């Protein structure tokens, strides 16, 4: 008796499954090839863009040094030279984080970076800034020294005067430790992740008067999403010759990030 081997079922996902829908949704979050692009428009070749990346790199060091600090606890840095080193690394990476974030913010403000359906990118950046302020503030409160005592009492007065002092207690060290190491980093992390996703989704804003080249990230607008779903029945606006259109910025090979 001979038996024919059963042919393997092709691994094509059924479009009706939730995993296929989730996969399609994730792939559609950013334009194809823009999750980690290897080419950027020529106008991205500027020092001003370095500060956004430097801010992100600083955040990585902040989180890493903060994780090491959790091993020794709040008072580690008072009694150990290693603890003081890690604590200082945490402090100075935070200083660098805020300095680079503010310079990034100045640059984006003067570029009017909210143009071209990028309002949410700007808003999440601002939210990340304010969330980071709160996280840094709770860090001051858990130094376990006279500085943190003085700051917490002054803050308590200010928050009570603002009418929000009953919702949390900045003089409760245990509460502030948990806010600083879990709640607020989670909030900032989610907002920063959303900000990066929107940067990839919308693309880097072109200079005022220029337009992004067609072979790099184009903002995912409702019109483009509709065109991608229904097919190329309508011509892509960037392919329509129009002498009144602003000059396109070239895609420079030197513009690789």
């Amino acid at each position, binding site marked *: 008796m001979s038996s024919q081997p059963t042919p393997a079922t092709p691994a094509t996902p059924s479009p009706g499954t939730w995993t296929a829908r989730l996969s399609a949704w994730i792939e559609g979050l950013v334009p194809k090839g823009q999750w980690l692009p290897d080419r950027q428009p020529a106008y991205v070749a500027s*020092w*001003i863009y*370095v500060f956004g990346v430097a801010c992100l790199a600083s955040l990585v060091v902040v989180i890493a040094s903060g994780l090491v600090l959790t091993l020794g606890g709040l008072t580690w840095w008072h009694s150990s030279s290693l603890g003081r080193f890690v604590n200082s690394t945490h402090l100075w990476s935070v200083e660098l984080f805020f300095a680079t974030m503010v310079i990034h913010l*100045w*640059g984006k403000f003067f570029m009017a970076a909210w143009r071209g359906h990028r309002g949410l990118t700007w808003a999440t950046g601002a939210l990340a800034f304010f969330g980071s302020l709160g996280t840094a503030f709770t860090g001051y409160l858990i130094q376990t020294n006279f500085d943190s005592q003085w700051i917490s009492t002054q803050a308590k007065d200010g928050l009570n005067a603002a009418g929000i002092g009953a919702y949390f207690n900045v003089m409760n060290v245990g509460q502030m430790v948990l806010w600083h190491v879990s709640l607020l980093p989670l909030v900032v992390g989610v907002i920063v992740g959303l900000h990066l996703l929107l940067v990839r989704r919308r693309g880097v804003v072109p200079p005022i008067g220029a337009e992004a080249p067609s072979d790099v990230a184009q903002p995912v607008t409702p019109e483009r999403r509709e065109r991608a779903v229904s097919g190329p029945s309508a011509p892509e606006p960037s392919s329509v010759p129009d002498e009144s259109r602003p000059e396109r910025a070239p895609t420079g090979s030197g513009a690789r990030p």
Partner: protein
Amino acid sequence: MSSEFFAAAEPTPAGAVVQWGFITVTVANLVTILVMILVFVLAVLLPFPGSHEEDEQ
């Protein structure tokens, strides 16, 4: 031990401040702000290495 404790307990000197009307800022913070503005201006003005590679070809 006790001398170390009391040395640590002494308040840190506040440092020099600059007062301009109702604005009071420590010299350290003022220097930091000015350096940040300088870095921002340099970032805008200085060319990025390799940014003119395409033009030269």
